[in-house]
């Protein structure tokens, strides 16, 4: 099937569109949008492309940035990761964009990383991810594991009294790493190894009968059981359907998901899922003035009252606003100037808190646990009292516990070893 994918990439590549706006008093500032508009990931990423167009339109209506208009440059990476690297290179060299907002999967981020490093571009990455990374040219506006997975597990342990754990995920880097961190965390918390079941499935897995019945059997050992799901994308609908059909109710075995949000739930009837959980840093149902305004403006922009908002959209909202502030503070769109000025900047998020860009290029976020409702929305049942700062290197894995990232002087390093006081990577050479 290799030929199939290569051809698809070629075809989709020709579909790339570039939007030229009509304003032309000054040279516009170009913003690259690097998302999949076709292929398997289009389901999630198309909305993010629209979100960026929406944010840029709003900013232009406010008079642009530094007196100049913003111009979006949209490319389609067609869910094809080598193509993503090519498209990133095209954005930075041919279109000469000043910042790029994009990628969804970790594999996409990993394949464009070398390009951003080499060409010294800026990437704002809006999705929760597995951590264990900090790069000078990348800003991680989604959650790291300590801002999503760990608090969710804490919630289940404390509020629901869960003692037995199923860690179910799609077979790729994000679930694998997250589950590794969670497994270590659970073992540290005194959970016996036989009370943890880890299960991986391929992308787009649709026949969940065996796995769901295994979960059912695993949950019938007399201890309260929960499923921590890092199942990604399309596989979720058949998974939840099978859960409902086999009669697993949230009261018996709750499922807490890290990749299921409003957008994913808009694909089906959630009545049988009421009570299952999701952990995010934003829910559409959060009642704050900022959020209400955002949803109203979004509906006006997209022209459809039924469209939902979700966590990665908020991440783009925060990332875009932080970039705007950094450019204003630096008085220039030069990547080095932005990287220097953005750390420490703050912008309100949509849940009533403040997002601050940390020296490790992660941001502060609240953690919310929501229960699925029958209208496809989430009801927040728990939230952290304070904002949680994003941690690039997990403290629960022995190999990364002593690492930290700090992109400010004098450390200026993505994987600084606190014990040996040395920088482990080659990033510094590239940075200076």
């Amino acid at each position: 099937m290799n030929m199939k994918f290569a051809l698809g990439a070629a075809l989709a590549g020709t579909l790339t569109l570039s939007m030229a706006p009509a304003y032309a008093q000054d040279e516009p500032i170009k913003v690259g949008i690097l998302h999949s508009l076709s292929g398997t990931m289009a389901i999630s990423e198309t909305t993010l492309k629209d979100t960026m167009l929406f944010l840029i339109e709003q900013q232009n209506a406010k008079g642009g940035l530094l007196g100049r208009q913003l111009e979006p440059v949209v490319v389609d990476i067609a869910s094809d990761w080598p193509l993503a690297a090519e498209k990133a290179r095209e954005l930075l060299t041919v279109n000469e964009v000043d910042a790029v907002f994009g990628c969804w999967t970790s594999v996409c981020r990993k394949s464009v990383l070398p390009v951003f490093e080499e060409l010294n571009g800026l990437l704002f990455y809006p999705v929760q991810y597995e951590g264990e990374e900090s790069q000078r040219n990348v800003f991680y506006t989604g959650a790291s594991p300590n801002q999503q997975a760990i608090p969710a597990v804490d919630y289940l342990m404390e509020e629901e009294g869960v003692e037995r754990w199923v860690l179910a995920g799609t077979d790729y880097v994000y679930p694998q790493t997250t589950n590794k961190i969670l497994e270590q965390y659970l073992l540290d918390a005194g959970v016996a190894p036989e009370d943890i079941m880890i299960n991986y499935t391929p992308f787009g897995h649709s026949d969940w009968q065996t796995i769901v019945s295994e979960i059912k059997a695993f949950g019938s050992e007399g201890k309260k059981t929960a499923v921590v799901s890092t199942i990604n994308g399309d596989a979720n609908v058949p998974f939840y359907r099978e859960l409902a059909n086999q009669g697993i109710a949230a009261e018996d075995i709750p499922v807490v998901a890290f990749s299921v949000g409003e957008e994913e739930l808009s694909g089906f009837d959630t009545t049988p899922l009421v009570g299952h959980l999701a952990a995010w840093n934003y829910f559409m149902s959060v009642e704050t003035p900022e959020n209400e305004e955002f949803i109203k403006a979004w509906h006006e922009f997209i022209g459809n009252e039924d469209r939902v908002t979700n966590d990665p959209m908020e991440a783009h909202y925060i990332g875009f606003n932080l970039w705007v502030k950094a450019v204003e503070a630096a008085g220039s769109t030069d990547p080095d100037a932005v990287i220097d000025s953005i750390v420490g900047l703050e912008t309100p998020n949509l849940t009533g808190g403040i997002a601050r860009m940390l020296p490790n290029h992660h941001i502060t976020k609240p953690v919310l646990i929501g229960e699925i409702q029958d209208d496809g929305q989430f009801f927040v049942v728990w939230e952290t009292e304070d904002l949680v700062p994003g941690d690039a290197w997990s403290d629960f894995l022995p190999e990364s516990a002593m690492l930290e990232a700090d992109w400010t002087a004098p450390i200026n390093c993505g994987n600084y070893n606190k014990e040996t006081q040395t920088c482990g990577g080659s990033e510094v050479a590239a940075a200076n």
Partner: protein
Amino acid sequence: MRPIRSLRLILTCLGLALALLAGPARAQDIPGLVQSMGEASLRELGGIVEELAATGDSAVAPALEALAEGDLYANEADGRVVILARNRMYDPVTQEEIGPAADADLSRIRINNSLRRDVAAALGGLTLMSDNPSVRLSAARSMRANPSEENLALLDEALAAETDPAVRSAMETARAVTVLSLADTGIEEKRAAVPVVAHNARREAITILNSALADAPDELAADIRSAIAGLEQERAIWAALQNVWFGVSLGSVLLLAAIGLAITFGVMGVINMAHGEMVMLGAYTTFVVQEVIRQNAPGLFDYSLAIALPLAFLITALIGMAIERGIIRWLYGRALETLLATWGLSLILQQTVRSIFGPTNRQVGNPSWMSGSFEFYGLSITWNRFWIVIFAIAVFAALLVVLNRTSLGLQMRAVTQNRRMASAMGIRTPFVDAMTFGLGSGIAGLAGVALSQIDNVSPNLGQGYIIDSFMVVVFGGVGNLWGTLVGALTLGVANKFLEPYAGAVLGKILILVLIILFIQRRPRGLFALKGRAVES
């Protein structure tokens, strides 16, 4: 039912008296308590539910039921708590109608999992004496799920008066579970409870016994262990059978997806990479039909699939014929070009659907008769899978009839076996080609209707099945419908038996490797065609 009623009255009075004795005189203030739910936080709600349950008054049951169902609302306008049903507001305690919901600013009183459990437990105690057997049954079930000391007395009372055998058995099970879970019940009583649980509690029996085992004294533990051992043995046998069923069900999905391909690829020899997109179009037809029904005639929803089936068949068959006439017929005999052309076509179809319906999943509902599951002895069978197996068999049978018993089928076979001879005999071969391709595509459309019930309806739906479909057809033997049937079922069952040991990812890889090895040994698949047809 008279004795039960009077009993209930006595119990209610008893409950009231108890509540009066036990705490401050809150029991009379049920309306007040219910009203206070409007402003309560999740934590406070928990306390209120507890207090309501402690009243023991069945008058609080409707309010609690509404709370659990999500039908309890607070009217922001006057702060009043109401039950919403069919767009009208009702008083949660007296059940009197208040008025239409349109005039009020209602916000739902939301609860979480642990509260939902508490409410279910409270309701169990309150509705055990209901006049309605099905209410009593669900009360007994919820007591079984939430055992507590108070339940024991209630269950004993209820058992004494119960006449309905099903409810009685549920109550006995609930009682046995309660006895086992409480610390201070006598050993003899517990010992008597073990076989009741083992016999009645079905699939949950092992769960219940295991949790009882944890704090059982030695002499009881032996009893429990032997009961569990018996159940485990039984379960192992049923688990194997269950796996066979999962395999058959996966096989039937593969069969549905592949059987259309068995016609276009198997019979006509066209490598049709757009086959998966025909399946996808069938699923989208179902979506459109359901949308129209939702908007115009919600009552017909349970028939939506029956309406979608012929439509999906017609639409995909017509598209298939257009593809055959427009593209494929120019490429007969050039396999690689057909492959490329149909594959390009599949991309175009996907992107078209994405542009029209959007990239996100569309909601296709399960009609009520396709939701949930039923127990067949030790097997748990979900209705949607069950009907899909039946449907796959029906489609297969219908296709056999069409190919073997109709003149169109005869012509199809004639044309594919020897085109020139068939043409010489007066068969319009171009027409037959179009019909054959249309039939194959139409069946893919039917598969789409079925798959919309278990998978995502998204533009990528077809992609996930195209590889599996080719695998089935090649494995089963090109050009043989029976081969497709046996191939699909074999792959399904093999996959399901590998999955528990190797995991889903490795299982799939193993299956692929096995097929490659198999094809090395038998290049023409399980059921190879013999004779002159092979050469053409």
